[in-house]
């Protein structure tokens, strides 16, 4: 029903009243006015004259006297009609007759409408008359046109007078259309002609008695509507004073009359409100039922649309509201502003929604609901010191440290000096942040006081005066006070502060008794701007800090996986799950077999070598050759017994075919004893002693093969089926983490960490979650497109293995390059990647322990990049344990660190953080990750540091700038 009405109104807007309709054929039935049977028209009961006298006497005269055109008019349409330019032979008491005339003379419309607007509020009896007299005119269609014409004229009129008339009119007309469906009992006789009947209805309710509006929603809705339209002046009052419907249009009328300059602005505003006001659920349902499935009763849990008040049950809410891009609104209501009465519920999630959606979605919807633009309080509804706010002003008002509580549309006054805040015409209700540049200058009669005592140019109310007197402020002689936000007051024109109003404890109590505001504690006299800034930015900040992403990258072999495993071991209660352990166990076992295979391969080589040697020796000494061959059967130190030999050959064959991994862990039970035997054989031990000659054997092999004494091999332990890898085993094991792609671990630094560094002892810090993401260097390719996915990383931890400087690897093009140079190239790629142009880099120089050993033997200048490394070593190198003299390793580290820092600052102009690392030592990794955390903390505090302070801090922390 309401939908139909709505379309009628919409159409009415489109049709200009003077034009013929040329649009597409109308599918629905045209509203038709039926000849009215006078007897059946509900005749208004004669209203007792008393309520009229006080309501009508004052407001009507003002507007008319202010307008030139109708200056002489009295609130009687008799006079109105006589004064208008066109004199028609219609009955002077007929309202509708004016409408007809309206068709002929468009300029006359405003006066007519004015008359109508006036009339509706004034003389119900005349309306009845007019309706009666309309009948003979029999221009029914014209009638309708005229009525719809009134509506359209509301929007088209640019004449200020017409404008305000239009507003009054639109409220009336809409009111009628709204009220129509809710008050069918009145319009039953005229049901065909909707507009006119609605119109009539609105007239009806004008004369209807009080009991009527209480029972009838239509009155309320009209009241609501008119209050909307006139909210600038009337907004506040209407909720309290909605007992008198008739007064609404009248008051509006006066208000607009009183300030002409805003009329156009107001007019344009009233338009969306018309749209808004008619936003009602598309269907009417039984009270308490779901609007979609029409089931349920008052007690079933329902979610309400913020716009049209439609209620939906659990099953329907997601269907009816879709993905809720603007919060809880029906899909059809998206884009419409919310019902102001529901503003308090914005962003407050119901239990039902929580049950239906997951946390993340609920949070997102609530955020959208609170922050999306259409749901914001329209700034023009808030009028401060007589001027509607602009968008920025409203934001300022809401974001200040001490904002007005429960800001509703309405008129307020605001004393910028003291921060006093109140509703227009009333005593102050609150003290908000002072010095906000919102609204116009305060008016003397803002709080409608009559005490002749002024505070900051505002005449204060009696209550305030009483408070001032009781607070001991001298108020004799009607002084004009100047009150600051801290309560200090002085008389206008004088310099000395006379005292503090809220200084005494008693005053606050007094204020509470008189329900006057006192300054809140949080409002500081200074630094207002700063605090408001903080308030505004904090929520965002908090979300951003929810999880901090640390990106761990490095060239292959740089030890990123060790760091990753260390982080898991350090910060997780169960570093590796059962499944992972099982997987790691198999990986380690197959690794051990491959180590053994490599050793066996070496053994064969050594055996051959030693045999050749033997033969050479023997060929020199030809006589003994034969004996040797017979006796020893080519036995050398590296020879093994045939059984082991068979195993060895088989193993080597498998390795060559590359199916070791497929076979081995499974066949382990069978071959483990053989391995034990093999390990204890002298030949194998001899080979193992020469393991440094086997380049393919990784350095970690020795960890897995031997443990302490050579007699009981760790390999034997490992190959047992019930072997459980220890954390250290896992740490040493290669390729146990996901072989390709990336791996990540969420952790937070344990509490105990704060004992040793006091200055980062923020309690909330321990709640911070970190996510260490390890990226595999393999498959990075040239441009690393997908690094864009990591633009939210807080820091990039780049890992370089220090002892790469003398090692070589094959790059993509098949060239053999120094691994350090490859690392450097990769580093350059990463730091210049556009994704990382704002992100800090932490360089971890890994494997410092083995580097220290290596640098003593292999000069650093083996790598081209480090050819100008000329360490100045103290002459007495023998006592290098002296702390004052850095070791060669330390010098080398500093040198490489500086090399990287220079490279970094040349590429980006920023500062590189460097730390050294021993990947296998948990403490070292822990320190490095905590250093990364410190960098993040500094980052956040950076703006707070003065420049010098900061640079000192960082230089010291990154330990060696140069």
């Amino acid at each position: 029903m309401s939908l139909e009405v709505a379309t009628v109104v919409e159409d009415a807007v489109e049709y200009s009243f003077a034009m013929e309709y040329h649009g597409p054929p109308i599918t629905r039935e045209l509203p038709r006015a039926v000849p009215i049977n006078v007897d059946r028209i509900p005749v208004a009961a004669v209203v007792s004259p008393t309520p009229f006298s006080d309501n009508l006497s004052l407001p009507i005269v003002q507007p008319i006297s202010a307008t030139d055109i109708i200056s002489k008019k009295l609130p009687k349409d008799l006079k109105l009609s006589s004064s208008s330019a066109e004199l028609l032979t219609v009955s002077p008491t007929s309202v509708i007759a004016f409408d007809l005339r309206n068709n002929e003379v468009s300029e006359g419309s405003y006066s007519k409408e004015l008359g109508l607007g006036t009339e509706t509020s004034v003389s119900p009896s005349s309306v009845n008359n007019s309706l009666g007299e309309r009948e003979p005119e029999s221009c029914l269609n014209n009638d309708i046109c005229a009525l719809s014409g009134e509506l359209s004229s509301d929007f088209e009129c640019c004449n200020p007078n017409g404008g305000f008339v239009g507003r009054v009119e639109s409220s009336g007309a809409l009111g009628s259309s709204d009220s129509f469906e809710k008050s069918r009992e009145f319009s039953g006789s005229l049901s065909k002609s909707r507009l006119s009947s609605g119109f009539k209805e609105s007239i009806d309710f004008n004369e209807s008695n009080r009991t009527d509006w209480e029972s009838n929603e239509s009155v309320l809705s009209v009241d609501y509507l008119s209050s909307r339209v006139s909210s600038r002046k009337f907004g506040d009052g209407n909720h309290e004073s909605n007992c008198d419907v008739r007064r609404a249009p009248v008051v509006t009328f006066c208000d607009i009359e009183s300030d002409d300059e805003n009329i156009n602005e107001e007019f344009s505003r009233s338009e969306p409100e018309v749209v808004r006001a008619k936003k009602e659920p598309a269907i009417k349902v039984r009270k308490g039922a779901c609007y979609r499935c029409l089931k349920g009763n008052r007690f079933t849990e329902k979610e309400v649309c913020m716009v049209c008040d439609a209620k939906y049950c659990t099953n329907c809410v997601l269907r009816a509201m879709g993905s809720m891009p603007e919060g809880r609104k029906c899909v059809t209501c998206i884009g419409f502003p919310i019902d102001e009465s529901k503003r308090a519920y914005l962003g407050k999630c119901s239990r039902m929604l929580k049950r239906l959606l997951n946390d993340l979605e609920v949070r997102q919807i609530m955020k959208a609901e609170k922050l999306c633009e259409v749901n914001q309080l329209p700034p023009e509804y808030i009028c401060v010191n007589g001027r509607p706010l602009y968008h920025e002003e409203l934001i300022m008002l809401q974001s200040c440290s001490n904002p007005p509580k429960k800001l509703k549309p309405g008129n307020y006054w605001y004393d910028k000096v003291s921060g006093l805040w109140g509703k227009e015409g009333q005593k102050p209700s609150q003290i908000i942040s002072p010095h906000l540049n919102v609204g116009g200058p305060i008016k003397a009669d803002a709080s409608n006081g009559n005490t002749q005592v002024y505070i900051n140019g505002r005449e204060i109310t009696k209550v305030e005066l009483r408070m001032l007197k009781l607070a001991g402020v001298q108020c004799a002689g009607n002084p004009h006070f100047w009150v600051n936000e801290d309560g200090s007051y002085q008389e206008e024109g004088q310099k000395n502060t006379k005292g503090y109003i809220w200084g005494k404890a008693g005053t606050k109590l007094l204020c509470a008794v008189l329900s006057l505001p006192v300054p809140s504690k949080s409002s500081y006299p200074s630094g207002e701007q700063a605090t408001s800034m903080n308030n505004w930015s904090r929520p965002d900040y908090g979300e951003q800090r929810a999880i901090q992403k640390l990106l761990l990258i490095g060239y292959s072999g740089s030890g990123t996986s060790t760091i990753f495993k260390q982080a898991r071991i350090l910060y997780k209660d169960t570093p590796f799950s059962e499944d992972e352990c099982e997987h790691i166990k198999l990986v380690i076992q197959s690794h051990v077999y491959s180590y053994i295979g490599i050793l066996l391969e070496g053994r064969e080589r050594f055996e051959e070598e030693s045999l050749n040697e033997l033969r050479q020796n023997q060929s020199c000494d030809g006589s003994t050759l034969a004996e040797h061959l017979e006796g020893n059967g080519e036995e050398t130190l590296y020879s093994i017994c045939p059984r082991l030999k068979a195993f060895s050959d088989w193993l080597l064959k498998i390795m060559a075919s590359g199916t070791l991994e497929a076979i081995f862990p499974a066949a382990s039970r069978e071959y483990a004893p053989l391995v034990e035997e093999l390990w204890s054989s002298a030949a194998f031990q001899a080979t193992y002693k020469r393991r440094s000659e086997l380049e393919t054997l990784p350095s970690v092999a020795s960890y897995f093969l031997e443990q302490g004494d050579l007699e009981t091999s760790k390999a034997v332990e490992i190959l047992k089926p019930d072997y459980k890898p220890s954390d250290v085993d896992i740490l040493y094991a290669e390729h146990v983490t996901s072989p390709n792609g990336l791996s990540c671990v969420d952790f937070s630094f344990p509490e105990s960490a704060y004992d040793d560094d006091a200055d980062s002892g923020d309690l909330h810090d321990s709640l911070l979650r970190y996510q260490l993401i390890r990226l595999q260097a393999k498959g990075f390719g040239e441009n690393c497109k997908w690094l864009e996915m990591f633009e939210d990383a807080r820091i990039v931890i780049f890992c370089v293995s220090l002892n790469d400087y003398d090692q070589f690897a094959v790059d993509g093009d098949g060239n053999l390059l120094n691994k350090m140079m490859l690392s450097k190239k990769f580093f350059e790629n990463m730091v210049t990647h556009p994704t990382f142009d704002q992100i800090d880099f932490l360089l971890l120089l890994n494997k410092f322990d083995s580097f220290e050993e290596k640098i003593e033997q292999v000069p650093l200048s083996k790598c081209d990049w480090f050819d100008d490394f000329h360490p100045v070593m103290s002459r007495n190198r023998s006592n290098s344990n002296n702390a004052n003299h850095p070791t060669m390793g330390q010098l080398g580290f500093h040198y490489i660190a500086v090399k990287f820092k220079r490279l970094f600052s040349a590429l980006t102009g920023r500062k590189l953080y460097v730390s050294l690392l021993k990947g296998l030592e948990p403490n070292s990794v822990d320190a490095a990750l905590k250093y990364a955390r410190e960098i993040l903390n500094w980052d956040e505090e950076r703006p707070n540091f003065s420049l010098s302070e900061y640079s000192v801090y960082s230089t010291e922390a990154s330990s060696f700038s140069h």
Partner: protein
Amino acid sequence: MSVAELKERHMAATETVNTLRDRLKQKRLLLLDTDVAGYARSQGKTPVTFGPTDLVCCRTLQGHTGKVYSLDWTPEKNRIVSASQDGRLIVWNALTSQKTHAIKLPCAWVMTCAFSPSGQSVACGGLDSMCSIFNLNSPTDKDGNLPVSRMLSGHKGYVSSCQYVPDEDTHLITASGDQTCVLWDITTGLRTSVFGGEFQSGHTADVLSVSINGSNSRMFVSGSCDSTARLWDTRVASRAVRTFHGHEGDVNTVKFFPDGNRFGTGSDDGTCRLFDIRTGHQLQEYSQPNSDNEVRHVTSIAFSVSGRLLFAGYTNGDCYVWDTLLAQVVLNLGSLQNSHDGRISCLGLSADGSALCTGSWDTNLKIWAFGGYRKVI
């Protein structure tokens, strides 16, 4: 033969290949007397014109909390699956903008997603180098998460793109950062064939996109970081049927033309191109000089059902609608009032061509449809 000698010979061979390629290019240029736009103009074709209200955003699908990376429509119903950096796949009903499924992924860094032809399952892939298949009908576990019904593992690099073979729920083609494309058998979880790779004449850099020919599902085309697109026959894995040169940057996206005889590409060089798979010629280049000289890449393309329109998303948030015949921009969706705030990362047309869905780094998806009485072209 010594290493130096080998290197020399390799150098010489590369040189020869390059000169031959150049000659081929010259020859092609000689043979091409016109391009599509020139021919269409000479035939008196007039460009399509769009008013500002002809293509309007009619839905905003909000629900992701991270950048949207990929989307796909179901062939038969109006459902969309989208993949985002918040680590979720969301299945939407495009008509009602409801979410029908939200799937939490084991690896948050997802790059691609696809709907199966039957609409029963979705596939996704990303930096975990796996392609995960989710059956939408399978029951959720106790946390409300949909379990992975199959993991296709075998790629050695990230999975950049995946597409189901039309009308087959059991076969899927993926493209990967390991320079290969793989045809998978989902029922067994094994690779049926690998296209490209170490010893084969495949792409020489990361493959970023695949598109399967709609009219002949044995043919598919792939676009790669080596700035080429290659046409493959699924029956011949060993070598590409044809290699299409022309782009001067990574080929980010490829899409078959509706008739299956042409395909479009979008690249880091900011252009889209149209290639003919039978002649191997480039038919048309679609590029427009950017006003503010900033480099913008084409992230994703889609053709309208007739092929007359080409929708192309750019990294700077533009989304052009090209007239494929006259190579003119008809409309820029990125300049419309309610457009995306961030880069448009993916777009796709519904099966009936009535709606376009765009996904963006601003975490939203938007559905665009023809407003008014305009017919679908």
